[in-house]
């Protein structure tokens, strides 16, 4: 985690991953968020997931919108290019970046204001296009940077710090993502690293639009009694459907958590997700079932977490557009310019 400044030198005995990188190589600048912010825990989980997957840090493009959550890409993967773009517009910027170079890993970081309010449209359309990305919403139900206004994910009936009640219905981005055809949909909790790290790792390896809604309490404006996004509330109402292990051909990330049956899901790139099922009836390949499950539990006031849906055979926007394997940003005049002879023919056809 990078909320405190650490010295540059490191202990020679620090564990290294397959590429010889330590955790430190995946860290970024010192966080400027409030101490105890759920977002910093998510940052730590992203670092952990990238470390575990042995990703080359500079091969990740981190793209965000505007808001507290959107500041976080500065706090992890310091050797990656980051883009803190325009409020609510991360999805379009990420889509464009992805079209330009299909070989990088795209990590979109957004918040509930960024994705459920101002950027609701862009969220929806990037999901339905199947952009190959990991889209993380750090969801605290509140506008932190502008000091505590309700966001569109705030539950009806929840109270803000001043005691005002939210009377608008909440948007559940997980339900929307399922409906829009996201091929990987999960929800987690910033305080549950054991569940979150493998989810992020699996999402990164997933080909297509992977969406993770992470409930992330705001210690400054949304961690009080009456809030449905506080640490206490989420812990009490969390209903996990499964626990993940991600197996990448090396030692699996073993999560010694709940017992139960294990189901292995092989993803497009050959990596495997082991689902430790808690709910015996839960089938993560059933989109309609996932939607029903979600609604039933929401009605009971339960926040369902875990991997809710995955399509292991999904495709992405590049497949839909039938683009060449070489990243478009690496094509030069030779590949792109038809030349004067072709132009002469075009001229002739226009006479």
């Amino acid at each position, binding site marked *: 985690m990078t909320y405190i400044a650490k010295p540059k030198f490191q202990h020679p005995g620090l564990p290294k991953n397959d590429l010889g990188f330590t955790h430190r190589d995946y860290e970024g600048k010192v966080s400027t968020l409030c101490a105890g912010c759920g977002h910093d825990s998510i940052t730590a989980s992203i670092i952990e997931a990238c470390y575990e997957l042995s990703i080359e840090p500079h091969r990740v493009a981190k793209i965000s919108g505007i808001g507290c959550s959107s500041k976080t890409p500065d706090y992890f993967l310091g050797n990656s290019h980051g883009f803190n773009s325009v409020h609510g517009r991360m999805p379009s910027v990420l889509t464009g970046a992805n079209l330009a170079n299909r070989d990088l890993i795209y990590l979109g970081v957004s918040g509930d204001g960024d994705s459920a309010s101002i950027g609701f449209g862009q969220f929806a359309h990037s999901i339905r296009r199947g952009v190959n990305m990991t889209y993380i919403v750090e969801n605290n139900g509140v506008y932190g940077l502008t000091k505590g206004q309700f966001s569109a994910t705030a539950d009806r009936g929840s109270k803000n710090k001043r005691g005002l009640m939210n009377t608008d219905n909440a948007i559940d981005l997980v339900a929307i993502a399922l409906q829009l055809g996201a091929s990987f949909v999960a929800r987690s909790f910033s305080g549950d690293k054991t569940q979150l790290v493998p989810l992020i790792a699996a999402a990164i390896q997933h080909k297509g639009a992977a969406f993770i809604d992470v409930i992330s309490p705001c210690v400054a404006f949304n961690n009080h009694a009456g809030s449905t996004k506080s640490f206490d509330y989420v812990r009490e109402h969390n209903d996990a459907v499964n626990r993940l292990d991600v197996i990448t051909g090396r030692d699996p990330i073993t999560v010694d958590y709940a017992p139960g049956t294990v189901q292995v899901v092989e993803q497009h790139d050959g990596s495997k997700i082991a689902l430790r099922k808690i709910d015996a009836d839960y089938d993560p390949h059933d989109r309609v079932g996932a939607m029903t499950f979600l609604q039933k539990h929401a009605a009971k006031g339960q926040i369902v977490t875990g991997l809710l849906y995955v399509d292991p055979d999904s495709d992405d926007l590049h497949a839909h557009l039938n683009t060449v394997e070489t990243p478009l940003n690496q094509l030069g005049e030779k*590949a792109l310019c038809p*030349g004067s002879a072709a*132009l002469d023919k075009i001229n002739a056809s226009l006479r």
Partner: protein
Amino acid sequence: MPVQSPISSVNDFVVRFANVNGSGSASANELFARSILRHGVPVSPRNVFPSNIQGLPTWYEVRVTEDSHLGARGGVDMMVAMNPQTWDKDLASIEPGGYLFYDSTKPMPASKFRADITVIGVPLTAITNSTYTDPRQRQLFKNIIYLGSLCALLDMDPKLVEQLIGEQYKGKEKLLSSNVHALHLGRDWALQNLKCPIGLRVRKADKVGDRIFIEGNSAAALGAVYGGATVCAWYPITPSSSLADAFTSHCKRLRHDPETGKAKYAIVQGEDELASIGIVIGASWNGARAFTATSGPGISLMQEFIGLSYFAEIPAVIMNVQRAGPSTGMPTRTQQCDIIACAYASHGDTKHVLLFPEDPAEAFEFAAQAFDLAERLQTTIFVMLDLDIGMNHRLSRPLKWDDARQYDRGKVMTAEMLSDGRDFGRYLDVDGDGIPFRTYPGTHPTKGSFFTRGTSRDRYARYSEEGSVYADNMQRLVRKFESAQDMVPRPLQANAAKPTKYGVIYFGSTAPAMDEAIGLLEARGHQLDRLRIRAFPFHSSVASFIADHDFVYVVEQNRDAQLRSLIVNENGIDPVRLVPILHYDGTPITARFIADAIGDHQDQLKVTPLRKVKS
């Protein structure tokens, strides 16, 4: 009423077709224009169409002009009145001595005609209905039948029309022969029943040369293909949609890998203009050449991103096919009304590069050049087309490409340069031109990464709210804009035959009308030096041109004299010295309008004596 003799003119007249939108007339009318071109006689056609798919009135105007006056002329010498809804207006628009061509199947009262024109009736519906039974065929072939009659009336060579039909329906023999049949039905009826030819005639000439006949939107799209654009994101809006459509079809022909069949481009129809420009900026940030095509309302929606492009210094190309605003304005009518909106787009202190093509050939060149400029200057480049250039076929010099030309990818620091220890500051002015180096994401494992943001930062892209750091960056952006002055297309000057104290500045689609107006003004005894501005920021020759003349007219197609305001503002010119000549009713500007407006002003200058100051 004095007897008006019928207009007699060879290769110099205007025919206007009044049709109902969606009746299939467009292809027949275009065939008419192309047929005249095949006679070696230049034409300049214009669509005048409503914001509608079916049912409302639409017009197609063909100016036949052996002298290659490609601007709109104004006035109609022959009206092909195929739309009863607009009959009265169409009839009134015919020049005295002109011709009215109509469907005479149903008798019309004499009050529905004019005495000073020649009325030509052809029973088109009767001919059509006696030949065809299928309603759709009846509608389509009626158009070809009137084309056949015009062929006889205007003394056109039917062989040339047949040849064109042959090219159009190559491989579809049934359609080919039935179209030729319909053509002759109309022609034969006219030859047998009417006095052919009339006073307006097409005579073979050799005045077309190697010129091509193309819409500006298609040419600009081709420029994007040649300029190396790989990502196009757009949202449908008239009159720019056909630019994105043309890019799609050009790419389908020219940009697929011959072995794998895969596409060397990505086109996304965005959910709106915000997403379109967002995709463009994301792709350009990541090193691809990307563009969007839009019109005024789209520009309004893109404002925030345009500011980001300016401040975070990310290349972007926006093709703005202008239409009449504000608000929804007149979506299918032309104007040059987004000059200020684009030059100063977005919040805060911003300035953007604008390119003003005059015709399809320049639309092609400027579109291709826009990608070099965007990457060299790392900012948004606007290609300012308009509906008149974009959506009309225009006779244009052939498109040219130098195979030795290389794309200017701008200042990009590579992995090798970073490994060699080059100092990388994303916003560091290393060459004194205000232009810093950038790196593409994923370039180097440990060097050259930076965090792109719209908030202020120092020369090394580190977040900073220090006033001096912010001001330092803003001043560098001014230096960069000054550097742009010498990179963009320069103004073109053409001097009058005799030395004169008066000049005229114009740009974009006004060019052909302006060139023609010069001749009309000379005939009235007025000499004018001309300067066609082709880009913003303005080259220093703009200020010197103004300094060299007592008065300079600034001709533009908007209400508020936007280019004039930009010149006054950017060059500190005394506004009194720039006389606005403004045309903004949504129709293309004409030589007659310009010559009248400037001529009247010049006449006043001549006759008005200096006022004596009484003490």
